[in-house]
């Protein structure tokens, strides 16, 4: 893979991990952010650890700013992690337990124009009152804030985030995510977030990568990938809950997303489906109904009101993507 001059991070790697061979290839320009979304054990963390230099590549290369930092060949001796200008927030969170919160956050601060002042970071992370506390006294969410602060304070060019906010209250995540995005943008750095929360992934990334069983199945714009999944597996992973056979085609399916369905027949907006409601359950402020289509397939739909079981309904799946197995 040849990187262009604007490319800050170029990854083309293959790593053998336990039962899975992880393969991934992508390039990120300075200032770009990628979210990698997939199930547990899909190989998300391995990609981050390979970039950071904590895992040896089986094949391929990692380049940062055009410089080869890791390669599988003997003559491609890897650049040590400390020289890569990579910041990594890991899952589960690892802090330096003998140091205070302030010392943890300031650990990687070197004399650098990129260095953010620790006190300012502590303030934005909501950790000022805990500056002199040690790790053992912190909750899971507070530990994650410290780990994020420690990464953001270091002079990074590549920011790697492995489920960094999973223990933080949902309501408090947005400002922390914004802080990470803002800091990466200030440094003109690239950011990679791995998560199994699609909302989180879309909120962070300009680009979204879908990984499954070690393979990066699709990479594209954060919204585009969800609206146009490249395969049935990608569609399943990004939340399409039903697949209805395309008439007169074999192994081709309309992917039906529960949030992209409206009641009633609107053929100009998509595919009209009829079916019977099998069950209904609360789903946040709405209801999730399981529907059996007239053609026999089952799909889910999110509605504002709860129809009873056995209710015969007609719905329109809005521009459903057609996917193959």
């Amino acid at each position, binding site marked *: 893979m040849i990187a262009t001059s604007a490319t800050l991070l170029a990854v083309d790697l293959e790593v053998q991990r336990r039962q899975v061979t992880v393969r991934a290839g992508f390039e990120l320009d300075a200032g770009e952010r990628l979210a990698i979304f997939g199930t547990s054990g899909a190989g998300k963390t391995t990609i981050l650890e390979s970039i950071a230099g904590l895992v040896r590549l089986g094949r391929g290369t990692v380049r940062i700013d055009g410089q080869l930092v890791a390669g599988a060949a003997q003559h491609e001796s890897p650049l040590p992690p*400390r020289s890569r200008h*990579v910041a990594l927030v890991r899952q589960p969170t690892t802090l*330096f*337990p*003998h140091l*205070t919160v302030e010392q943890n956050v300031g650990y*990687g601060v070197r004399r650098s124009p990129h260095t953010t002042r620790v006190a300012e970071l502590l303030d934005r992370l909501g950790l000022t009152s805990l500056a*002199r*506390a040690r790790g053992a006294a912190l909750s899971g969410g507070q530990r994650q804030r410290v780990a994020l602060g420690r990464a953001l304070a270091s002079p990074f060019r590549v920011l790697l985030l492995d489920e960094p906010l999973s223990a933080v209250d949902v309501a408090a995540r947005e400002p922390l995510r914004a802080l990470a995005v803002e800091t990466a943008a200030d440094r003109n750095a690239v950011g990679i977030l791995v998560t199994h929360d699609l909302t989180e992934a879309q909120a962070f990334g300009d680009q979204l990568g879908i990984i499954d069983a070690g393979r990066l199945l699709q990479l594209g714009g954060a919204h585009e990938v969800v609206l146009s999944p490249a395969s049935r597996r990608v569609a399943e992973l990004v939340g399409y809950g039903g697949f209805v056979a395309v008439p007169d085609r074999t192994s081709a399916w309309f992917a039906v997303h529960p949030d992209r369905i409206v009641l009633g027949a609107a053929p100009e907006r998509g595919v009209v489906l009829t079916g019977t409601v099998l069950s209904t359950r609360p789903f946040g402020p709405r209801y999730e109904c399981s529907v059996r289509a007239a053609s026999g397939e089952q799909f889910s739909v999110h509605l504002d009101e709860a129809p009873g079981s056995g209710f015969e309904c007609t719905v329109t799946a809005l521009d459903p993507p057609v996917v193959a197995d």
Partner: protein
Amino acid sequence: MTTNAPAGNLATTGVVPGFPTATRVVARGSTVLALLGALAMWLALLGPFAVLIQHLSFHSIRAALGPPGALDPLWVSLGASAIALGAMVLLGTPLAYLLARGRLPLARIVELGIILPLMLPPLVIGLLLIFLIGPQGTLGSLLADIHLTGTNTFFALVVAEFYEAAPFYVLGAHAAFASVDPRIEQDATLLGDRPLQAFRRITLPLSAPGLATGLATAWARAIGAFGAVIIVAYYPRGLPNQIFVGFQEFGLSGSLPFALLLVVAALPLPILAYLWSARNRARVAGAEAP
């Protein structure tokens, strides 16, 4: 709904329906027995120290330790043990670290090699050391080239103490390093530390309580080493040898003052290390920095 349960509930009566009172009495009795057993064990371990204090008199101490040169065994023991301890730290720390991080090939064989001196009786170690470093030994002639003699010298004393005590330090250090999550070290290197910096700033402080305990145990074993020492280094006479010779020549009154000296010389470091370790562990686990 009606039940056959007695009136009241667990919170108000403390009685679990159907749980016989006799069982609770037995449980309470077992706890008391366990406490008594623990107390007896503690007293049994302290017994020799109590007897030592009881049987010593100021007069006997002055008589034994007063003459010129009487304290020489103390200085010999302190010097030899300090050098042996230094060698253990210098050679044993990298070995323990590499072993704890799984970076040594044939790790099980290496571990066995560390444990082997512990399994051999000290007297046997002494005999084998004569074959190894004695004048006719495998390494003896090499040592002679650099003017070192492997029997009845200060050097031989250091070597004998090293063999008796080093496994305690290496095993203690191995456990201490293994208790530090290697991912924390990786984090330090990602934040710009060289490996040695990460070791100094992260690994060492976190493993320090365990290292101190291992060091203190090794110190106590080194300064009290006798079995191997009496075979390869009868001279220069350290404290354990002096106690043995005093006992043979003058009985208890001639050996007890030196025993007290040995205890006084050997114990402070382990006790200080224990107290420091306990305080340090509490500090790391605690909420606020001092």
